[in-house]
Protein backbone atom coordinates (compact mmCIF):
# COMPACT_ATOMS: atom_id res chain seq x y z
CA UNK A 1 0.00 0.00 0.00
CA UNK A 2 1.51 3.31 -0.99
CA UNK A 3 1.79 6.02 1.62
CA UNK A 4 -0.26 8.69 -0.07
CA UNK A 5 -1.97 11.55 1.68
CA UNK A 6 -2.04 10.93 5.41
CA UNK A 7 -1.62 7.19 5.79
CA UNK A 8 -1.91 5.56 9.22
CA UNK A 9 1.76 4.53 9.00
CA UNK A 10 2.88 8.07 8.30
CA UNK A 11 0.90 9.49 11.20
CA UNK A 12 2.37 6.87 13.51
CA UNK A 13 5.87 7.81 12.37
CA UNK A 14 5.14 11.46 13.09
CA UNK A 15 3.97 10.62 16.60
CA UNK A 16 6.99 8.36 17.17
CA UNK A 17 9.41 11.11 16.20
CA UNK A 18 7.83 13.44 18.75
CA UNK A 19 8.69 10.90 21.47
CA UNK A 20 12.25 11.87 22.54
CA UNK A 21 13.16 8.83 24.63
CA UNK A 22 11.93 6.52 21.90
CA UNK A 23 14.04 8.30 19.31
CA UNK A 24 17.02 7.98 21.69
CA UNK A 25 16.26 4.26 21.98
CA UNK A 26 16.08 3.93 18.21
CA UNK A 27 19.45 5.69 17.81
CA UNK A 28 21.13 3.39 20.36
CA UNK A 29 19.61 0.34 18.67
CA UNK A 30 20.84 1.52 15.28
CA UNK A 31 24.32 2.11 16.74
CA UNK A 32 24.45 -1.41 18.15
CA UNK A 33 23.22 -2.92 14.90
CA UNK A 34 25.91 -1.00 13.03
CA UNK A 35 28.49 -2.14 15.59
CA UNK A 36 27.46 -5.73 15.05
CA UNK A 37 27.50 -5.45 11.26
CA UNK A 38 30.71 -3.42 11.03
CA UNK A 39 32.62 -5.18 13.84
CA UNK A 40 35.45 -6.38 11.57
CA UNK A 41 36.12 -2.80 10.40
CA UNK A 42 35.47 -0.97 13.67
CA UNK A 43 37.34 -3.34 15.92
CA UNK A 44 40.84 -2.24 16.96
CA UNK A 45 42.04 -5.83 17.34
CA UNK A 46 41.22 -9.45 16.68
CA UNK A 47 38.79 -10.52 19.44
CA UNK A 48 40.40 -13.97 19.62
CA UNK A 49 44.03 -12.79 19.61
CA UNK A 50 45.54 -13.59 23.01
CA UNK A 51 48.59 -11.82 24.37
CA UNK A 52 50.69 -12.99 27.32
CA UNK A 53 52.10 -9.50 27.69
CA UNK A 54 48.72 -7.77 28.16
CA UNK A 55 46.76 -9.81 30.69
CA UNK A 56 43.97 -7.97 32.59
CA UNK A 57 45.32 -4.53 31.70
CA UNK A 58 43.00 -1.66 32.70
CA UNK A 59 41.58 0.63 30.00
CA UNK A 60 44.31 2.59 28.22
CA UNK A 61 44.96 4.36 24.93
CA UNK A 62 45.99 1.05 23.34
CA UNK A 63 43.05 -0.91 24.77
CA UNK A 64 40.13 1.47 25.38
CA UNK A 65 38.13 -1.09 27.35
CA UNK A 66 41.19 -2.89 28.78
CA UNK A 67 42.15 -6.53 28.18
CA UNK A 68 40.84 -9.79 29.62
CA UNK A 69 42.44 -12.71 31.45
CA UNK A 70 43.91 -14.02 28.18
CA UNK A 71 45.13 -10.64 27.02
CA UNK A 72 42.32 -10.18 24.46
CA UNK A 73 41.02 -6.69 23.68
CA UNK A 74 37.71 -6.13 25.54
CA UNK A 75 36.45 -3.48 23.09
CA UNK A 76 36.93 -5.92 20.22
CA UNK A 77 35.12 -8.62 22.16
CA UNK A 78 32.23 -6.29 23.06
CA UNK A 79 31.87 -5.28 19.40
CA UNK A 80 31.93 -8.88 18.18
CA UNK A 81 29.74 -9.89 21.11
CA UNK A 82 27.12 -7.50 19.75
CA UNK A 83 26.79 -9.91 16.80
CA UNK A 84 25.71 -12.77 19.04
CA UNK A 85 23.36 -10.55 21.01
CA UNK A 86 21.75 -8.79 18.06
CA UNK A 87 21.44 -12.05 16.14
CA UNK A 88 19.88 -13.72 19.16
CA UNK A 89 17.55 -10.78 19.69
CA UNK A 90 16.48 -9.91 16.16
CA UNK A 91 16.71 -13.30 14.46
CA UNK A 92 15.12 -15.37 17.19
CA UNK A 93 12.26 -12.90 17.62
CA UNK A 94 11.76 -12.86 13.84
CA UNK A 95 11.54 -16.64 13.89
CA UNK A 96 9.18 -16.41 16.88
CA UNK A 97 6.97 -14.01 14.87
CA UNK A 98 7.01 -16.34 11.87
CA UNK A 99 5.99 -19.25 14.08
CA UNK A 100 3.58 -17.44 16.38
CA UNK A 101 1.62 -15.05 14.18
CA UNK A 102 0.31 -17.51 11.56
CA UNK A 103 -0.64 -20.00 14.28
CA UNK A 104 -2.36 -17.28 16.33
CA UNK A 105 -4.21 -15.92 13.27
CA UNK A 106 -5.35 -19.41 12.36
CA UNK A 107 -6.60 -20.04 15.90
CA UNK A 108 -8.43 -16.72 16.11
CA UNK A 109 -10.06 -16.95 12.70
CA UNK A 110 -10.82 -20.68 12.64
CA UNK A 111 -12.29 -20.91 16.13
CA UNK A 112 -13.70 -24.17 17.42
CA UNK A 113 -11.45 -27.03 18.52
CA UNK A 114 -8.49 -25.75 16.47
CA UNK A 115 -8.58 -22.58 18.53
CA UNK A 116 -9.08 -24.40 21.82
CA UNK A 117 -6.13 -26.72 21.18
CA UNK A 118 -3.74 -23.96 20.07
CA UNK A 119 -4.76 -21.61 22.87
CA UNK A 120 -4.26 -24.28 25.56
CA UNK A 121 -0.80 -25.22 24.25
CA UNK A 122 0.24 -21.56 24.16
CA UNK A 123 -1.08 -21.02 27.68
CA UNK A 124 0.78 -24.09 28.93
CA UNK A 125 4.03 -22.80 27.45
CA UNK A 126 3.44 -19.34 28.89
CA UNK A 127 2.90 -20.79 32.35
CA UNK A 128 6.56 -21.88 32.46
CA UNK A 129 8.97 -19.00 33.21
CA UNK A 130 10.63 -17.75 30.03
CA UNK A 131 14.22 -18.38 31.04
CA UNK A 132 13.60 -21.81 32.57
CA UNK A 133 11.98 -23.03 29.37
CA UNK A 134 14.76 -21.51 27.25
CA UNK A 135 17.43 -23.16 29.43
CA UNK A 136 15.68 -26.52 29.27
CA UNK A 137 15.32 -26.33 25.49
CA UNK A 138 18.88 -25.11 24.97
CA UNK A 139 20.25 -27.88 27.20
CA UNK A 140 18.21 -30.40 25.25
CA UNK A 141 19.43 -29.08 21.88
CA UNK A 142 23.08 -28.89 23.00
CA UNK A 143 25.38 -25.95 23.67
CA UNK A 144 25.76 -23.77 20.57
CA UNK A 145 24.69 -20.24 19.66
CA UNK A 146 22.32 -21.50 16.93
CA UNK A 147 20.65 -23.86 19.38
CA UNK A 148 20.33 -21.12 21.97
CA UNK A 149 18.68 -18.89 19.35
CA UNK A 150 16.31 -21.64 18.34
CA UNK A 151 15.46 -22.26 22.00
CA UNK A 152 14.78 -18.55 22.50
CA UNK A 153 12.67 -18.41 19.32
CA UNK A 154 10.50 -21.32 20.45
CA UNK A 155 10.17 -19.92 23.95
CA UNK A 156 9.24 -16.46 22.66
CA UNK A 157 6.64 -17.65 20.15
CA UNK A 158 3.62 -18.41 22.40
CA UNK A 159 3.29 -14.76 23.39
CA UNK A 160 2.80 -13.97 19.68
CA UNK A 161 0.35 -16.83 19.30
CA UNK A 162 -1.71 -15.43 22.13
CA UNK A 163 -1.47 -11.82 20.97
CA UNK A 164 -2.30 -12.60 17.33
CA UNK A 165 -5.17 -14.86 18.38
CA UNK A 166 -6.68 -12.26 20.68
CA UNK A 167 -6.38 -9.51 18.10
CA UNK A 168 -7.81 -11.75 15.39
CA UNK A 169 -10.77 -12.58 17.62
CA UNK A 170 -11.36 -8.85 18.16
CA UNK A 171 -10.97 -8.10 14.47
CA UNK A 172 -13.33 -10.91 13.49
CA UNK A 173 -16.09 -9.19 15.44
CA UNK A 174 -15.60 -5.79 13.78
CA UNK A 175 -17.96 -4.41 11.18
CA UNK A 176 -15.23 -3.94 8.63
CA UNK A 177 -14.33 -7.63 8.67
CA UNK A 178 -18.01 -8.52 8.38
CA UNK A 179 -18.26 -5.98 5.57
CA UNK A 180 -15.30 -7.65 3.88
CA UNK A 181 -17.08 -10.99 4.21
CA UNK A 182 -20.26 -9.50 2.80
CA UNK A 183 -18.26 -8.25 -0.20
CA UNK A 184 -17.25 -11.84 -0.96
CA UNK A 185 -13.70 -12.07 0.43
CA UNK A 186 -12.46 -15.64 0.79
CA UNK A 187 -11.21 -16.58 4.30
CA UNK A 188 -7.51 -16.32 3.43
CA UNK A 189 -8.00 -12.78 2.15
CA UNK A 190 -9.92 -11.82 5.27
CA UNK A 191 -6.95 -12.95 7.34
CA UNK A 192 -4.13 -11.53 5.24
CA UNK A 193 -5.63 -8.37 3.78
CA UNK A 194 -8.08 -7.21 6.43
CA UNK A 195 -7.03 -8.69 9.78
CA UNK A 196 -3.22 -8.92 9.60
CA UNK A 197 -2.50 -5.27 8.68
CA UNK A 198 -4.71 -4.14 11.52
CA UNK A 199 -2.98 -6.27 14.15
CA UNK A 200 0.59 -5.41 13.12
CA UNK A 201 0.97 -2.44 15.50
CA UNK A 202 0.63 -4.41 18.77
CA UNK A 203 2.73 -7.22 17.30
CA UNK A 204 5.47 -4.72 16.48
CA UNK A 205 5.42 -3.34 20.00
CA UNK A 206 5.57 -6.82 21.50
CA UNK A 207 8.38 -7.81 19.11
CA UNK A 208 10.49 -4.87 20.26
CA UNK A 209 9.99 -5.78 23.91
CA UNK A 210 10.62 -9.46 23.15
CA UNK A 211 13.93 -8.59 21.49
CA UNK A 212 15.07 -7.03 24.76
CA UNK A 213 14.05 -10.19 26.59
CA UNK A 214 15.74 -12.40 24.01
CA UNK A 215 19.01 -10.49 24.37
CA UNK A 216 18.93 -11.06 28.10
CA UNK A 217 18.08 -14.71 27.52
CA UNK A 218 21.00 -15.13 25.12
CA UNK A 219 23.34 -13.48 27.63
CA UNK A 220 22.00 -15.74 30.37
CA UNK A 221 22.38 -18.88 28.27
CA UNK A 222 25.91 -17.89 27.28
CA UNK A 223 26.66 -17.08 30.91
CA UNK A 224 25.62 -20.63 31.75
CA UNK A 225 27.69 -21.99 28.90
CA UNK A 226 24.65 -22.97 26.80
CA UNK A 227 24.99 -20.22 24.18
CA UNK A 228 27.97 -18.87 22.36
CA UNK A 229 30.90 -21.24 22.86
CA UNK A 230 34.39 -20.02 23.80
CA UNK A 231 36.55 -18.62 22.51
CA UNK A 232 33.95 -16.77 20.35
CA UNK A 233 32.83 -13.65 22.23
CA UNK A 234 29.43 -13.10 23.74
CA UNK A 235 28.41 -10.60 26.41
CA UNK A 236 27.02 -13.36 28.60
CA UNK A 237 30.13 -15.56 28.50
CA UNK A 238 32.31 -12.48 29.02
CA UNK A 239 30.36 -11.76 32.20
CA UNK A 240 30.82 -15.36 33.28
CA UNK A 241 34.59 -15.27 33.03
CA UNK A 242 34.65 -11.77 34.52
CA UNK A 243 33.10 -12.82 37.80
CA UNK A 244 36.33 -14.42 38.99
CA UNK A 245 38.14 -11.09 38.62
CA UNK A 246 35.40 -8.74 39.75
CA UNK A 247 37.53 -6.98 42.33
CA UNK A 248 40.88 -7.00 40.48
CA UNK A 249 39.59 -6.25 36.97
CA UNK A 250 36.10 -4.74 37.14
CA UNK A 251 36.31 -3.50 33.51
CA UNK A 252 35.91 -7.10 32.38
CA UNK A 253 32.37 -7.03 33.77
CA UNK A 254 31.51 -3.36 33.37
CA UNK A 255 31.72 -3.07 29.57
CA UNK A 256 29.74 -6.14 28.51
CA UNK A 257 27.30 -5.43 31.34
CA UNK A 258 26.89 -1.85 30.19
CA UNK A 259 26.33 -3.05 26.62
CA UNK A 260 23.55 -5.40 27.73
CA UNK A 261 22.03 -2.69 29.90
CA UNK A 262 22.10 -0.07 27.13
CA UNK A 263 20.75 -2.24 24.35
CA UNK A 264 17.95 -3.67 26.50
CA UNK A 265 17.02 -0.21 27.74
CA UNK A 266 17.05 1.10 24.17
CA UNK A 267 14.75 -1.64 22.90
CA UNK A 268 12.36 -1.05 25.79
CA UNK A 269 12.27 2.71 25.21
CA UNK A 270 11.67 2.10 21.53
CA UNK A 271 8.86 -0.32 22.35
CA UNK A 272 7.18 2.20 24.63
CA UNK A 273 7.45 4.89 21.97
CA UNK A 274 6.02 2.55 19.35
CA UNK A 275 3.14 1.66 21.63
CA UNK A 276 2.26 5.32 22.11
CA UNK A 277 2.68 6.08 18.41
CA UNK A 278 0.54 3.15 17.29
CA UNK A 279 -2.10 3.44 19.98
CA UNK A 280 -5.46 2.98 18.28
CA UNK A 281 -6.92 5.68 20.48
CA UNK A 282 -4.69 8.09 18.57
CA UNK A 283 -6.00 6.81 15.26
CA UNK A 284 -9.10 8.97 15.15
CA UNK A 285 -8.88 12.74 15.31
Amino acid sequence: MSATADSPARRALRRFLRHRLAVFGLLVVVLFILAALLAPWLSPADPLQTSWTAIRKPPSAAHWFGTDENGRDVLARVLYGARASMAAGVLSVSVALLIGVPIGLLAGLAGGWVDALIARIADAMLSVPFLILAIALAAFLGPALENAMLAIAITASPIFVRLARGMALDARATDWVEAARALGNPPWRLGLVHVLPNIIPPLLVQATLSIAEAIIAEASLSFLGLGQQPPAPSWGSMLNSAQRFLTQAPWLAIFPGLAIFLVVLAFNLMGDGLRDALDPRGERR
Partner: protein
Amino acid sequence: MTAPLLELRDLRKHFPLRDAIGRRRGAVRAVDGVSLAVPRGTVLAIVGESGCGKSTLGRLALRLIEPDAGSVLFEGEDLRALSPAALRARRRDMQLIFQDPFASLDPRMTVGAAIAEPLRLHRITPRAGEAARVAELLERVGLRPEAARRWPHEFSGGQRQRIAIARALASGPRLVIGDEPVSALDVSVQAQVVNLLADLIRDLGLTFVLISHDLGVVRHIADRVAVMYLGSLVEEGPADALFAAPRHPYTRALLAAVPGRGIKAPPIEGDVPSPIAPPAGCRFHTRCPHAEAICRTEPPALTGGAHLAACHLQDRLPPAPPLREAEPGGDRLRRLQSFFQPAGSDA
Protein backbone atom coordinates in the same frame (compact mmCIF):
# COMPACT_ATOMS: atom_id res chain seq x y z
CA MET B 1 -46.81 -10.68 -9.63
CA THR B 2 -43.40 -11.99 -10.62
CA ALA B 3 -41.31 -14.11 -8.27
CA PRO B 4 -39.85 -12.09 -5.41
CA LEU B 5 -36.13 -11.28 -5.50
CA LEU B 6 -35.69 -12.36 -1.91
CA GLU B 7 -37.85 -14.74 0.01
CA LEU B 8 -37.40 -15.85 3.60
CA ARG B 9 -39.19 -18.99 4.70
CA ASP B 10 -39.70 -19.71 8.36
CA LEU B 11 -36.23 -18.49 9.31
CA ARG B 12 -35.05 -19.32 12.78
CA LYS B 13 -31.90 -18.36 14.66
CA HIS B 14 -31.32 -19.08 18.31
CA PHE B 15 -28.05 -18.03 19.92
CA PRO B 16 -27.18 -20.63 22.56
CA LEU B 17 -26.25 -19.42 26.03
CA ARG B 18 -23.60 -21.42 27.82
CA ASP B 19 -22.44 -21.43 31.39
CA ALA B 20 -18.82 -21.26 32.56
CA ILE B 21 -18.02 -24.83 31.58
CA GLY B 22 -19.84 -24.76 28.28
CA ARG B 23 -23.10 -26.48 29.13
CA ARG B 24 -26.09 -25.18 27.27
CA ARG B 25 -28.32 -22.94 29.33
CA GLY B 26 -31.17 -21.94 27.07
CA ALA B 27 -30.91 -19.72 24.03
CA VAL B 28 -31.70 -16.22 22.86
CA ARG B 29 -34.46 -16.60 20.31
CA ALA B 30 -33.28 -13.75 18.08
CA VAL B 31 -35.33 -14.77 15.06
CA ASP B 32 -38.12 -17.24 15.62
CA GLY B 33 -39.90 -18.27 12.46
CA VAL B 34 -39.99 -15.32 10.09
CA SER B 35 -41.32 -15.54 6.54
CA LEU B 36 -41.12 -12.57 4.21
CA ALA B 37 -41.00 -11.83 0.50
CA VAL B 38 -39.36 -8.83 -1.11
CA PRO B 39 -40.55 -8.24 -4.67
CA ARG B 40 -38.09 -6.86 -7.22
CA GLY B 41 -37.66 -3.11 -7.23
CA THR B 42 -39.46 -2.53 -3.95
CA VAL B 43 -38.34 -1.17 -0.61
CA LEU B 44 -39.24 -3.23 2.42
CA ALA B 45 -38.71 -1.73 5.84
CA ILE B 46 -38.22 -3.94 8.88
CA VAL B 47 -39.03 -2.00 12.03
CA GLY B 48 -39.05 -2.82 15.71
CA GLU B 49 -37.40 -1.95 18.99
CA SER B 50 -33.72 -2.66 19.56
CA GLY B 51 -33.18 -6.32 20.36
CA CYS B 52 -36.19 -7.54 18.40
CA GLY B 53 -33.97 -9.46 15.98
CA LYS B 54 -34.19 -7.20 12.95
CA SER B 55 -30.42 -6.92 12.45
CA THR B 56 -30.05 -10.68 12.88
CA LEU B 57 -32.76 -11.14 10.26
CA GLY B 58 -30.82 -8.91 7.84
CA ARG B 59 -27.67 -10.96 8.30
CA LEU B 60 -29.55 -14.23 7.93
CA ALA B 61 -31.00 -12.97 4.67
CA LEU B 62 -27.46 -12.56 3.32
CA ARG B 63 -26.28 -15.76 5.01
CA LEU B 64 -23.63 -13.83 6.89
CA ILE B 65 -24.76 -15.93 9.82
CA GLU B 66 -26.14 -19.42 9.44
CA PRO B 67 -29.82 -19.92 10.25
CA ASP B 68 -30.83 -22.85 12.46
CA ALA B 69 -33.82 -23.58 10.29
CA GLY B 70 -35.73 -22.23 7.35
CA SER B 71 -34.55 -21.15 3.92
CA VAL B 72 -33.43 -18.02 2.12
CA LEU B 73 -34.35 -17.87 -1.56
CA PHE B 74 -32.49 -15.30 -3.63
CA GLU B 75 -33.85 -15.17 -7.17
CA GLY B 76 -35.44 -18.52 -6.41
CA GLU B 77 -32.13 -20.12 -5.41
CA ASP B 78 -31.65 -21.40 -1.86
CA LEU B 79 -28.60 -19.64 -0.46
CA ARG B 80 -28.20 -22.37 2.13
CA ALA B 81 -27.60 -24.91 -0.61
CA LEU B 82 -24.65 -23.00 -2.06
CA SER B 83 -21.04 -24.01 -1.47
CA PRO B 84 -18.85 -21.40 0.26
CA ALA B 85 -17.24 -20.47 -3.07
CA ALA B 86 -20.58 -20.21 -4.88
CA LEU B 87 -21.96 -18.10 -2.06
CA ARG B 88 -18.97 -15.74 -2.28
CA ALA B 89 -19.53 -15.37 -6.01
CA ARG B 90 -23.22 -14.62 -5.34
CA ARG B 91 -22.33 -11.79 -2.97
CA ARG B 92 -21.82 -9.39 -5.85
CA ASP B 93 -25.60 -9.36 -6.22
CA MET B 94 -26.45 -8.66 -2.59
CA GLN B 95 -24.86 -6.09 -0.35
CA LEU B 96 -25.10 -4.68 3.13
CA ILE B 97 -24.77 -1.12 4.45
CA PHE B 98 -23.81 -0.97 8.12
CA GLN B 99 -25.05 1.30 10.85
CA ASP B 100 -21.74 2.67 12.11
CA PRO B 101 -19.67 4.24 9.33
CA PHE B 102 -16.74 4.57 11.75
CA ALA B 103 -16.53 0.80 12.14
CA SER B 104 -17.47 -0.51 8.72
CA LEU B 105 -14.48 0.76 6.74
CA ASP B 106 -11.09 -0.94 7.11
CA PRO B 107 -8.89 1.76 8.70
CA ARG B 108 -5.86 0.55 6.75
CA MET B 109 -7.35 0.76 3.29
CA THR B 110 -7.66 3.92 1.24
CA VAL B 111 -11.14 4.87 0.16
CA GLY B 112 -10.28 3.99 -3.43
CA ALA B 113 -8.97 0.55 -2.46
CA ALA B 114 -12.07 -0.13 -0.37
CA ILE B 115 -14.41 0.73 -3.25
CA ALA B 116 -12.28 -1.15 -5.77
CA GLU B 117 -12.21 -4.29 -3.63
CA PRO B 118 -15.55 -5.72 -4.80
CA LEU B 119 -14.59 -4.89 -8.40
CA ARG B 120 -11.45 -6.99 -8.04
CA LEU B 121 -12.98 -9.79 -6.02
CA HIS B 122 -15.60 -10.39 -8.67
CA ARG B 123 -13.40 -9.40 -11.62
CA ILE B 124 -15.94 -6.83 -12.73
CA THR B 125 -13.78 -4.03 -14.07
CA PRO B 126 -10.39 -4.51 -15.76
CA ARG B 127 -7.58 -2.94 -13.74
CA ALA B 128 -7.18 -0.19 -16.32
CA GLY B 129 -10.75 1.01 -15.91
CA GLU B 130 -10.80 0.65 -12.16
CA ALA B 131 -9.86 4.22 -11.23
CA ALA B 132 -12.51 5.63 -13.56
CA ARG B 133 -15.19 3.35 -12.11
CA VAL B 134 -14.21 4.28 -8.55
CA ALA B 135 -14.37 7.99 -9.45
CA GLU B 136 -17.78 7.45 -11.03
CA LEU B 137 -19.06 5.70 -7.90
CA LEU B 138 -17.72 8.43 -5.65
CA GLU B 139 -19.45 11.08 -7.72
CA ARG B 140 -22.64 9.04 -7.69
CA VAL B 141 -22.73 9.27 -3.88
CA GLY B 142 -21.84 12.95 -3.87
CA LEU B 143 -18.11 12.82 -3.11
CA ARG B 144 -15.21 14.19 -5.11
CA PRO B 145 -13.14 11.64 -7.07
CA GLU B 146 -10.00 12.84 -5.24
CA ALA B 147 -11.40 11.15 -2.12
CA ALA B 148 -10.13 7.82 -3.53
CA ARG B 149 -6.57 8.58 -2.49
CA ARG B 150 -7.49 9.47 1.08
CA TRP B 151 -8.03 7.39 4.22
CA PRO B 152 -11.29 6.75 6.05
CA HIS B 153 -10.21 8.67 9.16
CA GLU B 154 -10.04 11.86 7.11
CA PHE B 155 -13.81 11.87 6.57
CA SER B 156 -16.85 12.76 8.65
CA GLY B 157 -19.55 10.26 9.57
CA GLY B 158 -21.85 11.29 6.73
CA GLN B 159 -19.03 11.15 4.20
CA ARG B 160 -17.94 7.75 5.47
CA GLN B 161 -21.47 6.46 5.09
CA ARG B 162 -21.46 7.72 1.49
CA ILE B 163 -18.19 5.80 0.98
CA ALA B 164 -19.77 2.67 2.46
CA ILE B 165 -22.74 3.13 0.11
CA ALA B 166 -20.40 3.49 -2.87
CA ARG B 167 -18.61 0.30 -1.82
CA ALA B 168 -21.91 -1.56 -1.49
CA LEU B 169 -23.00 -0.41 -4.95
CA ALA B 170 -19.67 -1.09 -6.68
CA SER B 171 -20.44 -4.65 -7.71
CA GLY B 172 -23.85 -3.66 -9.09
CA PRO B 173 -25.97 -5.56 -6.56
CA ARG B 174 -29.65 -6.20 -7.12
CA LEU B 175 -30.42 -6.41 -3.44
CA VAL B 176 -29.11 -4.00 -0.82
CA ILE B 177 -29.84 -4.33 2.87
CA GLY B 178 -29.39 -1.20 4.94
CA ASP B 179 -28.98 -1.99 8.64
CA GLU B 180 -29.95 1.29 10.31
CA PRO B 181 -28.00 3.16 7.61
CA VAL B 182 -28.63 6.62 9.03
CA SER B 183 -29.20 6.08 12.77
CA ALA B 184 -25.57 6.72 13.71
CA LEU B 185 -25.42 9.99 11.77
CA ASP B 186 -26.03 13.53 12.91
CA VAL B 187 -29.62 14.57 12.37
CA SER B 188 -28.49 17.24 9.92
CA VAL B 189 -26.78 14.59 7.79
CA GLN B 190 -29.50 11.94 8.08
CA ALA B 191 -31.83 13.71 5.67
CA GLN B 192 -29.12 14.03 3.03
CA VAL B 193 -28.18 10.36 3.24
CA VAL B 194 -31.83 9.27 3.20
CA ASN B 195 -32.38 11.34 0.08
CA LEU B 196 -29.25 9.87 -1.50
CA LEU B 197 -30.54 6.36 -0.76
CA ALA B 198 -33.97 7.23 -2.16
CA ASP B 199 -32.37 8.59 -5.35
CA LEU B 200 -30.14 5.53 -5.77
CA ILE B 201 -33.04 3.14 -5.20
CA ARG B 202 -35.07 4.97 -7.86
CA ASP B 203 -32.29 5.47 -10.41
CA LEU B 204 -30.71 2.02 -10.14
CA GLY B 205 -33.98 0.15 -9.64
CA LEU B 206 -32.61 -1.41 -6.45
CA THR B 207 -34.48 -3.81 -4.29
CA PHE B 208 -33.86 -2.49 -0.81
CA VAL B 209 -34.45 -3.80 2.67
CA LEU B 210 -34.32 -1.01 5.21
CA ILE B 211 -33.80 -2.10 8.79
CA SER B 212 -34.71 0.83 10.99
CA HIS B 213 -36.44 2.03 14.08
CA ASP B 214 -36.90 5.51 12.68
CA LEU B 215 -40.46 5.54 11.40
CA GLY B 216 -39.96 8.94 9.78
CA VAL B 217 -37.28 7.52 7.49
CA VAL B 218 -39.34 4.38 6.87
CA ARG B 219 -42.36 6.44 5.90
CA HIS B 220 -40.20 8.38 3.48
CA ILE B 221 -38.86 5.53 1.36
CA ALA B 222 -40.59 2.22 2.15
CA ASP B 223 -43.16 0.54 -0.08
CA ARG B 224 -43.92 -2.18 2.44
CA VAL B 225 -43.32 -2.38 6.16
CA ALA B 226 -42.77 -5.41 8.37
CA VAL B 227 -43.01 -4.95 12.14
CA MET B 228 -40.99 -7.28 14.38
CA TYR B 229 -41.46 -7.98 18.06
CA LEU B 230 -39.30 -10.44 20.00
CA GLY B 231 -38.07 -12.32 16.96
CA SER B 232 -41.40 -12.65 15.14
CA LEU B 233 -43.38 -10.61 12.68
CA VAL B 234 -46.49 -9.03 14.14
CA GLU B 235 -47.66 -7.06 11.12
CA GLU B 236 -46.72 -6.68 7.49
CA GLY B 237 -48.33 -4.63 4.80
CA PRO B 238 -48.14 -1.75 2.32
CA ALA B 239 -46.58 1.29 4.00
CA ASP B 240 -49.56 3.58 3.35
CA ALA B 241 -52.09 1.11 4.72
CA LEU B 242 -49.96 0.21 7.70
CA PHE B 243 -49.35 3.80 8.69
CA ALA B 244 -52.96 4.81 8.07
CA ALA B 245 -54.61 1.85 9.77
CA PRO B 246 -52.24 -0.24 11.87
CA ARG B 247 -53.89 -3.54 12.73
CA HIS B 248 -51.66 -4.79 15.53
CA PRO B 249 -51.70 -3.12 18.96
CA TYR B 250 -47.90 -3.15 18.98
CA THR B 251 -47.71 -1.26 15.68
CA ARG B 252 -50.17 1.27 17.05
CA ALA B 253 -47.99 1.70 20.11
CA LEU B 254 -44.88 2.14 17.93
CA LEU B 255 -46.61 4.79 15.85
CA ALA B 256 -47.86 6.52 18.96
CA ALA B 257 -44.33 6.68 20.29
CA VAL B 258 -43.12 8.86 17.41
CA PRO B 259 -42.81 12.39 18.75
CA GLY B 260 -45.19 14.81 17.14
CA ARG B 261 -47.60 12.13 15.94
CA GLY B 262 -51.26 12.66 16.57
CA ILE B 263 -52.25 9.05 16.98
CA LYS B 264 -53.76 8.32 20.39
CA ALA B 265 -53.24 4.66 21.13
CA PRO B 266 -53.14 3.47 24.72
CA PRO B 267 -49.50 3.67 25.82
CA ILE B 268 -47.71 0.38 26.41
CA GLU B 269 -46.19 -0.29 29.75
CA GLY B 270 -43.24 -2.29 30.99
CA ASP B 271 -40.17 -3.56 29.24
CA VAL B 272 -39.74 -5.98 26.39
CA PRO B 273 -39.79 -9.52 27.85
CA SER B 274 -36.58 -11.52 27.61
CA PRO B 275 -36.03 -13.26 24.26
CA ILE B 276 -34.52 -16.14 26.26
CA ALA B 277 -37.96 -17.03 27.64
CA PRO B 278 -40.56 -15.27 25.50
CA PRO B 279 -44.13 -15.25 26.85
CA ALA B 280 -46.43 -18.09 25.81
CA GLY B 281 -49.27 -17.37 23.43
CA CYS B 282 -49.04 -13.99 21.78
CA ARG B 283 -45.63 -12.58 22.72
CA PHE B 284 -47.07 -9.12 23.10
CA HIS B 285 -49.81 -10.08 25.55
CA THR B 286 -47.79 -9.00 28.61
CA ARG B 287 -47.88 -5.40 27.43
CA CYS B 288 -51.02 -5.35 25.32
CA PRO B 289 -53.88 -3.18 26.61
CA HIS B 290 -56.43 -5.34 24.76
CA ALA B 291 -55.16 -8.80 25.80
CA GLU B 292 -57.76 -11.49 26.47
CA ALA B 293 -57.57 -15.07 27.71
CA ILE B 294 -56.82 -16.56 24.30
CA CYS B 295 -53.80 -14.25 23.87
CA ARG B 296 -52.11 -15.85 26.85
CA THR B 297 -52.24 -19.38 25.48
CA GLU B 298 -52.56 -19.42 21.69
CA PRO B 299 -49.83 -17.91 19.50
CA PRO B 300 -51.67 -15.92 16.80
CA ALA B 301 -50.96 -16.64 13.14
CA LEU B 302 -50.09 -13.94 10.61
CA THR B 303 -53.32 -13.53 8.63
CA GLY B 304 -55.12 -11.04 6.44
CA GLY B 305 -54.23 -11.08 2.72
CA ALA B 306 -52.03 -8.20 1.55
CA HIS B 307 -51.96 -6.50 4.94
CA LEU B 308 -51.11 -9.15 7.51
CA ALA B 309 -51.27 -9.01 11.27
CA ALA B 310 -50.65 -11.57 13.97
CA CYS B 311 -53.37 -10.69 16.45
CA HIS B 312 -56.37 -12.70 17.62
CA LEU B 313 -58.35 -9.53 18.08
CA GLN B 314 -57.38 -7.68 14.91
CA ASP B 315 -60.96 -7.57 13.61
CA ARG B 316 -62.42 -6.53 16.94
CA LEU B 317 -59.97 -3.80 17.95
CA PRO B 318 -61.31 -0.27 18.09
CA PRO B 319 -60.44 1.52 14.84
CA ALA B 320 -57.06 3.20 14.89
CA PRO B 321 -57.33 6.91 15.52
CA PRO B 322 -56.48 9.01 12.44
CA LEU B 323 -53.09 10.59 12.07
CA ARG B 324 -52.86 14.28 12.71
CA GLU B 325 -50.28 14.90 10.01
CA ALA B 326 -50.70 13.35 6.63
CA GLU B 327 -46.98 12.70 6.18
CA PRO B 328 -45.08 13.27 9.39
CA GLY B 329 -41.83 11.68 8.27
CA GLY B 330 -41.69 13.57 5.02
CA ASP B 331 -42.60 16.73 6.79
CA ARG B 332 -39.86 16.33 9.30
CA LEU B 333 -37.35 15.65 6.57
CA ARG B 334 -38.52 18.66 4.63
CA ARG B 335 -38.18 20.85 7.71
CA LEU B 336 -34.70 19.48 8.29
CA GLN B 337 -33.72 20.10 4.72
CA SER B 338 -34.96 23.65 4.67
CA PHE B 339 -32.89 24.12 7.78
CA PHE B 340 -29.64 22.64 6.64
CA GLN B 341 -29.53 23.01 2.90
CA PRO B 342 -28.99 26.23 1.03
CA ALA B 343 -32.25 27.67 -0.28
CA GLY B 344 -33.28 26.40 -3.70
CA SER B 345 -31.12 23.28 -3.72
CA ASP B 346 -33.90 21.10 -2.32
CA ALA B 347 -34.30 17.99 -4.44
